[in-house]
């Protein structure tokens, strides 16, 4: 990556990325088109898992923009997820606003919150683990706020009322409706398209240059703060959309579901497992992590003969999950996709 020469000679390097982008868009289209048929293969009972996996994937794509491409490791993406989720639930229950509109409002709000947080963190030169800790602290702050704000129902959380009939405007369908899968799939596709566009755009190239060496980038005249903040805003907006969809699918959001610490890790882990800073990493990571606990639970319910002794145990998925993380960190430090790509290039 010699992105640092981009401002000096914009003509020459532009050709290659544009070409690469085209290939990636095509591939994205194929992936999304293929995933479109998943609800026809899956039994009804597995659909919630598939939807949960898609929500993970969208969050991870959002997180990956800021932390993978932007190099600002966030340990508090729950903030943006939660802002999206609460915006949707609140506007819907208090004013009857359509969730589609709330998604956009939530995205803008989350971007605003993200910009504020990132601005102050960067302004005071927090980097690396200090930046991560600061974002974590903000997530805790939002958690406490949501627990104590009356208009958000404090610890009770907000219920999205069930409608008697399906409604596109209110984003509510029958429980087994395939739209519950297709809608986040399209959102995921759009988020991925944004990532591809960004990775190849001037701003994205600058952001990656800043990630690799902020001082060098600045000495070449790149406005470090500006491009970092652009990355953050996009990342937060995408994560907020995942949050809004969460509220619509689960019809309930409370402090724990919106701002709990596990929400932040849910955004990080797929990206880490798939490959931080790669375009396809979060998607692959989510496909591995999302169904994992369900697969293990299924295995434990009806174990093959040699695992008979495990029948009826619970909690094993957590152990497998932990083991998998350790194995990946040791043997595939760049994630599944990142490592494979590196090997193929050699």
């Amino acid at each position, binding site marked *: 990556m010699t992105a640092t020469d981009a401002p000096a000679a914009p003509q020459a390097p532009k050709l290659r990325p544009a070409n690469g982008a085209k290939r990636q868009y095509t591939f994205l289209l194929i992936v999304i088109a293929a995933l479109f048929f998943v609800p026809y293969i899956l039994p009804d009972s597995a659909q919630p898992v598939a939807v949960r996996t898609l929500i993970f994937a969208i969050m991870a794509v959002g997180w990956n923009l800021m932390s993978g491409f932007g190099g600002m490791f966030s340990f508090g993406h729950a903030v943006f997820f939660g802002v999206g989720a609460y915006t949707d639930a609140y506007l819907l229950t208090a004013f009857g606003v359509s969730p589609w509109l709330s998604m956009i409002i939530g995205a803008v709000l989350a971007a605003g919150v993200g910009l504020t947080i990132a601005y102050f963190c960067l302004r005071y030169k927090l980097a690396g683990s200090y930046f991560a800790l600061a974002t974590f602290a903000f997530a805790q702050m939002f958690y406490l706020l949501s627990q104590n704000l009356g208009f958000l129902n404090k610890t009770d959380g907000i219920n999205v009322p069930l409608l008697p009939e399906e409604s596109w405007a209110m984003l509510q369908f029958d429980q087994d409706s395939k739209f519950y899968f297709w809608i986040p799939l399209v959102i995921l596709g759009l988020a991925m398209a944004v990532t591809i566009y960004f990775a190849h755009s001037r701003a994205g190239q600058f952001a990656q240059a800043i990630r690799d060496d902020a001082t060098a980038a600045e000495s070449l005249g790149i406005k470090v703060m500006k491009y970092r903040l652009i990355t953050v805003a996009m990342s937060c907006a995408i994560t907020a959309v995942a949050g809004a969809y969460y509220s619509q699918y*689960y019809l309930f959001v409370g402090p724990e579901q919106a701002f709990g610490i596990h929400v932040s890790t849910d955004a990080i882990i797929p990206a880490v497992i798939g490959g931080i800073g790669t375009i396809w990493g979060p998607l692959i990571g989510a496909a591995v992590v999302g169904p994992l606990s369900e697969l293990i639970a299924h295995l434990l319910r009806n174990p093959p003969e040699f695992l008979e002794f495990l029948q009826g145990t619970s909690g094993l998925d957590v152990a497998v999950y932990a083991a998998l993380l350790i194995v990946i960190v040791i043997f595939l430090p760049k994630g599944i996709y990142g490592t494979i790509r590196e090997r193929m290039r050699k």
Partner: protein
Amino acid sequence: MKRKALSAAVLAASLVGLSACSSDSAESGSDSVETVTIGSVHPLSGSLAGVGGLMNDGAKMAVEDINAAGGIESLGGAQLELLDGDSQGEAQVGQSEAQRLISGGAVALVGTYQSDVTQNVASVAERSKVPFVIDVAVDDKILEQGYKNTFRIQPDASSMGQAGAQALVAMGEETGEPIDSAAYIHIEGAFGDSVFAAFKEEAEKQGITITKEITYSGSNFSDATTQVSEALAGNPDIIAVTGYYPDNLLVAKAVGSMANDTKAVFGIASGAFDDTSFPAAAGDAGTEVLSANYHYSATSDRAADIRARFEEKYGKPMETASMLSYQAVEVIAEGLEESGSDDPEELRDAIAGLSLEDPLLAFDGPIQFGEDGQNENATVIVMQVLDGKVEQVFPQQFATAELVFPAGSGN
């Protein structure tokens, strides 16, 4: 080019990952009516796995007992089958487990211990038109959604606060030791807030002054001395307490370690004071602590028999939560018996119109559900730690020991 091939491989892998669950095809229980499936959702892993496991065992034992007694007679002796789901203590997992159980053939659900998980499972039940009997989950709000398929056996938070205040007044009258003032220590959040609000309203109506309301955060709570000394400062007749096990244990210990003239520590919907392990854990500080809570009926022979067999089978005492799971399965079985059908909608109607005599809990009467699905006869009774055991002391009809009031705690 290589990258393309790789990407294709990755796509294939991710598809496999997603569709691997498809082998999970539902073996729906539509093979005549030989077995009827009930789904149970509890936290079987995670920090609440202990109580979740007990509750699951309680439900399982109810199924075994009913099957052993001949199954559902009106369905030709159909056997019950319990499918269990693990909520992991998380709302979204609880929701997907509920959906899995229903598509696996469950005609009714029991669960879930936590209010937020219950909230989500209730919405699944409503959308799938499958009856859901809540064993434990206290939040008033769950039944305020207007759902038609959700029923709750235990009293809700606000009725426990109200009943707690009434019991306090009645006890004062009976013993000739009137109670004029109370300080209230409770956990932050929906549970503590709603119990307190209801207590306050009723207590003030009855002429009890609340000298002080003190709240604490459930997380990071490692010492109750500050809260208790604040409560004692107003010299109240009673210290009322609402919270979960670990924090209420700390409150009891702190009161025990401070000299004071209060007449009693009085738990309302406290997760600790009537737990079997509380007297041993609290030691002297637990002596004569009072607790107003829903409770299994210690005067019922049927409950005693179930508890004895449970302890023999699982090696652990059957706590009230577990008894409620047992009771919830009985409610469903009775609904099946009445409706004579395993159709979830007919079952729902039967449960709504049910009147189940001889409840396993110390309630005011048979289990029957109001319009909103709340058991109308659910109530609290007062217990007290006497000679290292939790005894039922009030009202008289449920008493297993004599009430000691004022209690000698803290001296």
